[in-house]
């Protein structure tokens, strides 16, 4: 099996030749080549080259688009800091004044979205059906939080829930559009990120009402279009694994704070689990320590398959090559009997 076949086999609930490995990466490949995040933000070529080069060098199973750079929020009016990805000014300071200015995003014209789509097209051209191409998007709630500010929207959920719901309806429409553009550009998997939905931030009730309910709409839309979906929530989601499984995505990307054994016991074979090596370990541990933790992840979450070895969250740009290599080796060395 090649990487693409391996990942798709596992996502379809069947037994692959070995454990696939999809590290959650953004500028980590570029840093291995001496390039900064700023350089790949301004060069599709550098981003595409670095992603594919490292995927070949270490032989993991994916390439990623230029992800988690607040591109959707920027396209809708939030202002990012110069040559950076953090928000300097949020688009919605005043609901009455600023919501009137919102227009559905155009993935082919607005902000950096066309550049991201071009990157996916080129990655698909190079990777073909050898490596999976992962396209990233924010969940509607994440997008809303980067339009309004994470603190303020969390307060708004309590004080102005109707305003938040209105904004979320808009963000749901936008992300359905953007997700389709990712698929049409060539993304094999759409990875939806929802950093605020964990038990570290909000209650189950709030998570459903303001996040998962809207994510489910986008997921349903994209699934009908034939997309494979993975869903990532940063932080501890142990108390709401059932709700995440209810999204009926193809893979749940689990952060290191969740015990994979517990996740597998609770969810059974209902969904493919993706995770969950601590990024801190990948940054500052030894290859041997990384290998040992990966073994445990495979034992706990992937003994019977339906599992993709990954990091619990984004791999730090300075993580040593040999540590990510140790993660890939752990997957490669775990063959399944077919």
């Amino acid at each position, binding site marked *: 099996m090649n990487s693409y076949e391996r990942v798709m086999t596992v996502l379809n609930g069947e037994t692959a030749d070995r454990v696939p490995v999809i590290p959650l990466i953004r500028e980590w490949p570029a840093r291995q080549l001496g390039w900064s995040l700023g350089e790949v933000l301004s060069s599709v070529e550098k981003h595409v080259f670095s992603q594919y080069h490292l995927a070949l060098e270490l032989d993991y199973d994916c390439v990623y688009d230029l992800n988690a750079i607040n591109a959707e929020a920027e396209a809708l009016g939030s202002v990012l800091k110069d040559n950076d990805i953090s928000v300097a000014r949020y688009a919605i300071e005043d609901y009455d004044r600023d919501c009137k200015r919102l227009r559905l995003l155009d993935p082919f014209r607005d902000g950096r979205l066309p550049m991201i789509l071009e990157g996916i097209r080129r990655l698909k051209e190079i990777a073909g059906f050898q490596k999976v191409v992962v396209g990233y998007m924010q969940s509607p709630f994440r997008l809303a939080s980067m339009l309004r500010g994470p*603190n303020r929207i969390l307060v708004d959920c*309590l004080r102005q829930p109707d305003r938040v719901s209105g904004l979320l309806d808009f963000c749901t429409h936008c992300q359905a559009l953007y997700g389709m553009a990712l698929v049409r550009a060539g993304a094999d998997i759409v990875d939806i990120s929802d950093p605020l939905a964990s038990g570290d931030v909000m209650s189950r009730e*709030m998570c459903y009402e303001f996040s998962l309910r809207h994510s489910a709409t986008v997921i349903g839309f994209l699934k009908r279009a034939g997309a494979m979906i993975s869903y990532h929530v940063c932080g501890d989601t142990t108390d709401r694994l059932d709700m995440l499984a209810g999204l009926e995505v193809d893979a749940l990307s689990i952060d290191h704070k969740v015990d994979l054994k517990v996740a597998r016991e609770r969810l059974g074979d209902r969904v493919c689990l993706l995770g969950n090596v601590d990024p801190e370990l990948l940054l500052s541990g030894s290859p041997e320590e990384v290998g040992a933790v990966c073994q445990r992840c495979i034992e706990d979450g992937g003994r019977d398959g339906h599992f993709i070895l990954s990091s619990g969250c984004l791999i730090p740009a300075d993580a040593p090559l040999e540590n990510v290599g140790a993660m890939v080796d752990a997957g490669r060395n775990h063959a399944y009997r077919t």
Partner: protein
Amino acid sequence: MSLDLLVKEVCCGNNERAVEVAQGVLRTTAPARIVEALTWGMRSLGDRFDKREIFIPELLVASEAMGAVMGVVEPHLRQEGKEGARTTCVIGTVAGDMHEIGKNLVAMFLRASGHQVIDLGCDVKPELFLEVAEQERAHVIGCSSLMTTSRMEQRHLIDLLVRKGVREKYRVIVGGAAVGDRWAKQIGADAYLPDAFAAAQYMNELAAGRSV
């Protein structure tokens, strides 16, 4: 109007009602006693947060209400000379990191406890932390890192303070999901503080001249 009602309104995040109750309570209760009761109330919230009975949004609205009430109570504390030594803290999320919820909570709690806080926001370079700390004659620099990719900036800040010969001038406190006690010791920080309550307690102890 009672202290219990005031604490309840603050903990529920009812800003306007809390201020109204505070104004009533001030007529019959010493401001220092009010602050003591509110501090106890916030600590109880912290316990409930640890047990996952409440979450970040509830903490945020309670912090806002606390800040609103302290705006009413503080002038009375000053009048009585009970303001206590205030510490000044420069706080921010380190360079390359845009997470700020926890840092904002810390800033709110510190202000609510009567400390002066200069919040530099997110993506703050070490040089800016130092520049503002010097300008404001801060006692403490607080830097938050929510990502393993950014926590090295906390080390860079301490290295900068050492290079400039001003390390002893400032207490450096670190926090955020990417760090812990071990990391704090490794980089030579003065303390790792896991949450806003610990930060407020640390600053209160510092202000009172007690060893922390």
